[in-house]
């Protein structure tokens, strides 16, 4: 995450919070983000040096059309400072800050086989207990871990996978003391 994107995102979140418009701003920012990054041609047009000022302004106008006022101001501010590339990186940073502000965090659970309803619920409860706050868990299938599970909450990784246990065993065996 670039610290520049973080600055813009933090400022946006602050203003949105004081205006009680966090949800609307978040939804609109996500929409802009997907419009910009969803089509590589748009992004290239927006940031490319060969694009003329007029064309770029028209593109930006179309992007913010009907969006929240704060976002229109933000895009105008970015345009004034020639920071068009930031438009693509703002949303993930904003989302992270938003979740931190709400006391939530995200997590990923990787298992070799799909989990049933009961297990996922139990894991969500476990994750919330471990992290001490609400965790948005995503469940993913990862055959390469062979068995067990691997759960990452924020930057903390709980690794109980067979792949890792085997790796650890390999390391220990290769450092067995020699007589």
């Amino acid at each position: 995450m670039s610290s520049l994107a973080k600055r813009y995102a933090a400022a946006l979140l602050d203003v949105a919070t004081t205006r009680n418009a966090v949800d609307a701003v978040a939804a609109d920012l996500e929409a802009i983000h997907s419009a910009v990054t969803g089509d590589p041609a748009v992004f290239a047009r927006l940031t490319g040096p060969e694009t003329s000022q007029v064309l770029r302004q028209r593109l930006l106008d179309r992007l913010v059309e009907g969006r929240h006022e704060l976002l229109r101001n933000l895009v105008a501010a970015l345009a004034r400072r020639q920071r068009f590339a930031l438009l693509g990186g703002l949303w993930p940073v904003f989302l992270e800050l938003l979740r931190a502000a709400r006391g939530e965090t995200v997590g990923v659970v990787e298992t070799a086989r799909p989990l049933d309803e009961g297990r996922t619920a139990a894991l969500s409860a476990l994750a919330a207990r471990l992290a001490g706050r609400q965790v948005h868990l995503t469940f993913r299938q990862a055959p390469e871990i062979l068995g067990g599970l691997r759960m990452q909450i924020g930057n903390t990784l709980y690794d109980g996978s067979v792949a890792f246990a085997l790796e650890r065993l390999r390391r220990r065996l290769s450092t067995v003391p020699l007589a």
Partner: protein
Amino acid sequence: MDLKPSEVTSVLKQEIEGFHSSMETSNVGTVLSVGDGVARVHGLDECMMNELVSFDSGASGVALNLEEDNVGIVLLGQETSVKEGDTVRTTGRVISVPTGLQMLGRVVDALGNPVDGLGELGVTADDYRPIEGRAPSVPERQPVKEPLQTGIKAIDAMIPIGRGQRELIIGDRATGKTAICVDTIINQKETGGGDPNDPKQMLCIYVAVGQKQSTVKAVVSKLHETGAMPYTIVVSAPASAPAAMQFLACYAGASMGERFRDEGRHVVIFYDDLYKQALAYRQVMLLLRRPPGREAFPGDVFNLHSRLLERAAKLSDEKGGGSLTALPIVETQEGDVSAYIPTNVISITDGQIFLESNLFNAGQRPAVNAGISVSRVGGSAQIPAMKKVAGGLRIGLAQYRELAAFAQFGSDLDKATQQSINRGRRLEELLKQPQYAPVPVEEQVAVIYAGTSGALDTVPVNRVSEFELRYREHLRSAHSGLLEKIRVDRKWSDELAKQFDAAVSAFREQFLA
């Protein structure tokens, strides 16, 4: 290599039995960029300073920069295997090295891994110590009081080093800096017969930073040859090692020494050399984008050396009375001792031994400039006999140097001047010493007394070295009682002086005949 099958089976059993509980928690991050031995990592928000981290590929690194949105990590080898996007895990361990008696006689790298091809070290997890240690505080220390005998006449007599002192060895390239280290290590065999388990045996640690591997090999071979290796650890971070390893090697060596020091042993550690260490540190810090200061060194380059050298200490008796003596080496360029790193280290240490290339080329070896070399605390550690005798040596040489300048101009010199110059030439000749031939302190006292008492004045200058060698042999065979007396009592008396006067004049007649 001999693999014990039972060992492997036991590892397997443990692993299988404990399998269900084997959940490992670690803090993770993602590599943003990697290059020049430095990786920037996003995440790792619980990473500690100096913590070891491991990469997906098996490479490891040390966290040196903890910033708001990324962590700067220097890689310890295998840098080509690290890719952008790789996962990085913390290990919960700050960088640490194995220590203890098992390390003696071995050559290891900056992380304590053996590089001498002699197999595993045989250390346990308890033997590991973090490489950064806290220096002993004031109440934990006591003044330096025991001598460290280098076996080099010029140093032991005029620039004495005490146990727990920090004495800088400074000079241009090829002036014999490393030779002083090797001679000192060889001479430590005297203290305990070379048996590392004897508590009186001085232990030695030689840290080679940024040197050619061939130089390190030559030192190690010499130590093996002279039987000095059993009480010595060589920490080698050659010029081909990553820069991070080169600046960490000194701290690794210091930790190994501290273990012995805290166990009440006496240790001497050589950092060869701190200038190259500072260069390696500068490289890493510039890559980590720390702001450069004078000569592009980072602002904390003074602290880099001061915190290292502060770990040398003579511990109080309550703390076991062990000592760690540090002999750092700094290489100068064109004899410029007022450059940044030399002045820093001079100000930290308790004295310096200046080696000069013009002395070296003139055949004065060791090329110690006795005039400007000093030892600020070692004098109190000299044995009384040496102190008494060396006083005359210092005065004799000082007078000689003053007069020698005049002597170049005219031939009309009065008798007293002529006499001083003659004496001085012989004293200078007396301080010459071949490499790998340390002289025991009692023999040093005897030959220096012979020089300062005027017994050599009638010996031709070009025969002084020969005289010294044969006189020492003669003393060992015919007057071992006298030498023994100095070694045991350590005192000097008028009676002893008379006996030596008689011995030297009898020998001189025989020598000159």
